[in-house]
Each structure stands twice: as C-alpha cells, then as structure tokens.
C-alpha cells in the first residue's frame, strides 16, 4: 500500500478507535430511576436494651471474684432485638424484628433499605421498640410528607436526638 494511503488508512483506524472511546465513555445514557418516582431510604443502627437489667452483686459474690475484677454490678452484654415498623398511608412497608449484630449479640441492630415509591403526599409513621415491653413502641414519629419526583426521603433514627428523623419533612420544617 502506498505510504500516503497507509497514513490515511491509519487515520481512519485511529478515528474509529477514538469514536469508540468517545461514544462509550458517556453513551448510551442510562436511566437509573424513573423521573416521576421517588426513593425512601430507611437507615438505622441502634442498640436495644440489655436482655436483662444490671444486677447488683452480693458481698459474697464480689468477694469470690479475683481482686482485680471486682465490680458492684453484673451487666449482660447481649441486647434485645429492635422492632421497627414503617407505615406509609396506612400500609405497612416494614415490620421487622432486627437482631443485634456481633458475635455475642451485643452490637447495634442495623437496617439499611431502599424503597421506590411514586412521588406525592404521604402520611408516614415510623415506630421502634428497643425495650422488653411486649406491647406498643418506645419511639413513634408520624408526619405528613411531600415527596417530589426524584426526591430521596431518608428515615433516620437517632436515639440521642429523640428518635426518628424524616429528612424531607424535617428540612421543610426547619
């Protein structure tokens, strides 16, 4: 092949490769989420109460312990499971007893879940039980929330701040 033709052909090959890079570096576009729908994310990492309350040791029990390990109370490490319930417009979308994490069951109970929902106005209720009670909940939060298309509403639980937070409603409130 004459050299001019060869260089021209090489230019064509380079252009094809460049086209390949240029196209697939951004195309075809990918639709990750429906533009009319929204996302609800439930995120929770919370430790339930200890399975038994701490017990004060008797004088004899304390004396029986090695001197360097003597203490007044005996507290179990294990935690109770945490019961979580999320209700959206009267429909329960989560109702789960979440076991504590860790080899000895002494870590926090954890949930991280996503739900795709249509955009709109919802009555949202979040409830959590972390004690040994058999009825009712220790934390309850109910609110009317507006969720716009492509919005992400995060339901978070922070015991130290008082319980549940709904990111959309709380932002609107603030």
């Amino acid at each position, binding site marked *: 092949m004459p050299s001019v033709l060869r260089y021209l052909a090489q230019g064509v090959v380079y252009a094809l490769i460049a086209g390949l*890079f240029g196209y697939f570096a951004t195309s075809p576009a990918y639709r990750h989420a429906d533009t009319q729908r929204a996302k609800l994310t439930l995120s929770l990492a919370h430790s339930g109460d200890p399975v038994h309350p701490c017990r004060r040791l008797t004088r004899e029990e304390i004396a029986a312990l090695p001197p360097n390990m003597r203490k007044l109370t005996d507290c179990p490490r294990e935690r109770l499971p945490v019961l979580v319930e999320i209700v959206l417009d009267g429909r329960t979308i989560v109702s789960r007893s979440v076991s504590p994490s860790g080899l000895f069951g002494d870590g926090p109970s954890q949930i991280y879940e996503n739900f795709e929902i249509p955009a709109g106005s919802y009555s949202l209720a979040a409830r959590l039980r972390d004690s040994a009670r058999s009825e009712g909940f220790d934390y309850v939060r109910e609110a009317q929330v507006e969720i716009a298309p*492509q919005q992400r509403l995060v339901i978070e639980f922070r015991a130290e701040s008082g319980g549940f937070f709904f990111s959309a409603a709380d932002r609107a409130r603030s």
Partner: protein
Amino acid sequence: MTFLQSRLRWGFEVVEAWLDRIFGPAWNPLYQLGALGFFYYWVVAVSGIYVYILFDTGTTEAYESVEYMTVEQWYLGGVMRSLHRYASDGMVLMMVVHMLREFALDRYRGARWFTWVTGTPVLWLVFVAGISGYWMVWDELAQYIAILSTEWLDWLGIFGEPIARNFLAPHTLDDRFFTLLTFIHIVAPLLLLLVLWIHLLRVTRPRINPKRGLAVGTFLMLVALSFVKPAISHPPADLTKVPGVLDLDWFYLPAYPLMDHFSYGAVWAFAAVLSFMLFALPWLPPRRRAAAAAVDLDNCNGCERCANDCPFEAILMRPRSDALPFEQEASVDANLCTACGICAGSCPTSTPFRRASDLVPGIDLPERSLPVLRERLEAASAKLSGKTRVIVFGCDHAALVESLGSSQTGALSLPCIAALPPSFIDYVLSRDLADGVVITGCRDGECFNRFGVDWMTARLAGTRDPYLRKRVPRERVLTYWAAGADRAALAKAIEDFHTALAALPAAPPPAKMPRARPTASEGVSLDA
C-alpha cells in the same frame, strides 16, 4: 471451549491481516496490546498528576475544582482531564482485548499459567482505580456510584455499620472522605504497577513500550478526542435527590446497571464466579503438558545461546556439574518451559550433518527431538518426485502445513519455526533432499512463542547465531509468514515457488558441494 477459541482466533487473524496492511507488522496495534496498555497507563499517570495539582478535597470543593479545570482552564486542565479519562478507557479496552486474544491463541495454559493468573488481579485493580476516580468528581454520577458501591460492599456484612450511611444526607458526608478516596485512587494504580511487574516476571524481554510511531499516533488520537469531546461533569451531587438519567462510562461502570436490576448478592456471585473462572481457566480442562526441554551435558558446551533465545526465562546457566572443561552448563526449569523447542533450534550441536556420532543435541525436546525430525525429513524427501521438490518447515501455531503435502511438496511441522536449526535447510539442499525449502511460521511481528519468527529471520539473515551458512543458495529458500487464516495464500506462495525453482538452473550435484562442517560458531568442538 475449543470452538470458541477457534472462532475468536479466526476473527483476530482477519482483523490483524487488515491492520498488517494498514500499519505494517511493526505498528500493528493488535500485536502490542500489552505495551499499549502500559502506554495508556503512563498517559493516565502524567495527566493524573496535573489534575491532582488542581483538585481540591472537600464535599463542595471537589466538584468546584474539577469544574474549574474543565471550564476555566479547558485548554490545559480540561485537556488533561479528558486525556486522563480516555486513556483510562483505553487501558480497559487494551486489557480486555489482550485477555481475549491470549485466550483465543491458547497462550494461557501450561507454563504460561503464571502470566495469565497474575494478570487477573489487574482487572480488579484497574476497576478500583477507575471507579474511585469517577467518585472523586462528586457529581450526580459520583453520587450514584458511591451509594451503589457502598450498598454493594455492605451486603457482605463485614463492616460494623453500613458504610452507605455516610451518604444519607449532605451533613453525613465528611471532607475527609475525599482524602480517603484520593488515597485509594493513588494507591490502586501503584499496586497495579506492582502486579504488572509480577505479571511479567516470567516473560523474557517483555514489550512494555509500543513502537514509537504507534505511540505517537495513539497519543495524537487521545489529544484530538480530548478537544473534540472533552470530558465533562454531571450536575453536582445532591444526596436529597435521586439521579435520573446518567451518562455512564461503559468501560468502567457496566456493573452498576446490573446492581440496579439484580440483587447485590447476585452481582457478588457473578463477580466471584467470573474471577474464579479467570483464575482457573489455565486448568479448565486440565491438559497434558508437553515434556520440557532436556539438556544432554555431554553435548552442552555452555555457550548460552539457548538461554539467550528462550522467550520464557526457562533456561539458566549455572556452574558446570560434570568434568567437562567448560565453565557453565544449561539448566532447564521445567515449570517455565513451554516446549517450544527454540532452544534446540539455537544449539550449535543441533546439526543434522553429524554422522560420526549420533545426533544428540546439547538441548532438545524429548517428545519432538531433532533426530526424529531428521528421520521424518529424510522419509518425506524419499516420497518426493518431479522436477521441483520442495520441503516445507512450518509451525504448529501458524498456517498448518502438513495438509499442503503433495508428490512434489513434503511438509513438516515443528512446535515453533525457530525450533528448526538453520543447518537443516543446508542439509536439505546440500544432500539433494529437495530443490527448495520453504520456511513458514506465525505472522511477522506476532509469534506464538514470542520470538520464534524474529530469531529465525535473524538466523537466516546471518545476524544471530546459529547462522544459515553462506553457501546455501538463497534463491532456493522461501520464507513466508502466515497465520491459520493465510493458509490459501501460503499454498499459492508455495505453488509460485515451484514455478520459480523450475526456472532456476539445475543445482550442482551434491557430490561437488563442499562437505558441510559446523563453523566455530556452530560448536565444532563437540561435533566430532
């Protein structure tokens, strides 16, 4: 598996033939995929250093700094960012095509398992480096990748708390996170370099730089692409929103749509099975390995030619272990030997003229020895008739020659064309075993055994030991490099060679030719 390989191989050979015409064998990109991968790596590294100078770590600063270099400093920062992106894409493409090609050409089994297996982690490291880079821009695409990646990792349940919780809301994201990302984005490519070094440990004279012309062309292509279609960002990340439509980089991010449509567990299973399959491929199914080359110390004078010619570092020279008065002896590491026979082809004692003693080369393949080749050659010659008798020496991995045999053409295939000592060509012509010799093997620039074609070409040209003796009439020797797909062209070349031989004056009778005697460089000391 074999069917898939043969189809892929055919496809590669067709494309390679076109690229040979356009670029020539020396610049053919498909013959230098690994070297091109390295070249892209260096472009990524240099452009990355510049981008890093302008980059700010911070939840808002990251995006702003990338926008600055893309928009305000488009002529340099923007070009560097685009080079960084497209060269990274080039790395992925080269890596994948390189793997496919080695698979198609069956260059991953036997002693080559090590290079294949150590290449597999390169895939993971390249993806970690690339994905962390996309993450650093902190635009909508980065947000999408961040959330899916962390949810995917959380599926393993190995973290104390789900790491995806870092991306619940803007306030949960820390500036230090970008410092961590930068660390990962720098460490992964450095680790990659280390793994690549290990990847090439068992390869003699690895080609890590493409030919200059190809490198220049590739670089100009990247620069042109950077101006024509500069890399740009999506809108800034907003954790209160769900990104809708994304311009994915399909070279790096094809796993993310899978995560959207299948469970994280399924994607982990897919990744694990794929990785396992890639690791295990050299043994799927297990295949018997040809016996490694063996050294015959009585015929080895420690000349080092075999060690110099071995493409796989399988031959070491070590101090003499017997009483012969030579300093060194060759030693074969059977784990590294691919039984290509190039060592036997280079050995000065591999001369078929030996009659006073048995033909026992200093190094040879036990299963395809040179004495047997000489017997096959003489048997093939005895069957030839006609005015122009031709012996074809071919290679098992190139155009198959044995089916080209006829009453006028005898064909012998070797594990590599460089397994043929040039003295065999002299032997054929000086002993009147044929009127012409055809030497054929893999296409120029692309030898199954890496250097077979190069070494044979140099031996014929008299620039690498063992030389083809000057007395051999070159007009009676045809070299034609042909892949499997070029079999018809090879057959035509042989036919034309018969015609050319017929037009030559008759060869002098063998009795009048000087007696073949190995030169000093051919190891006369042992050829008694």
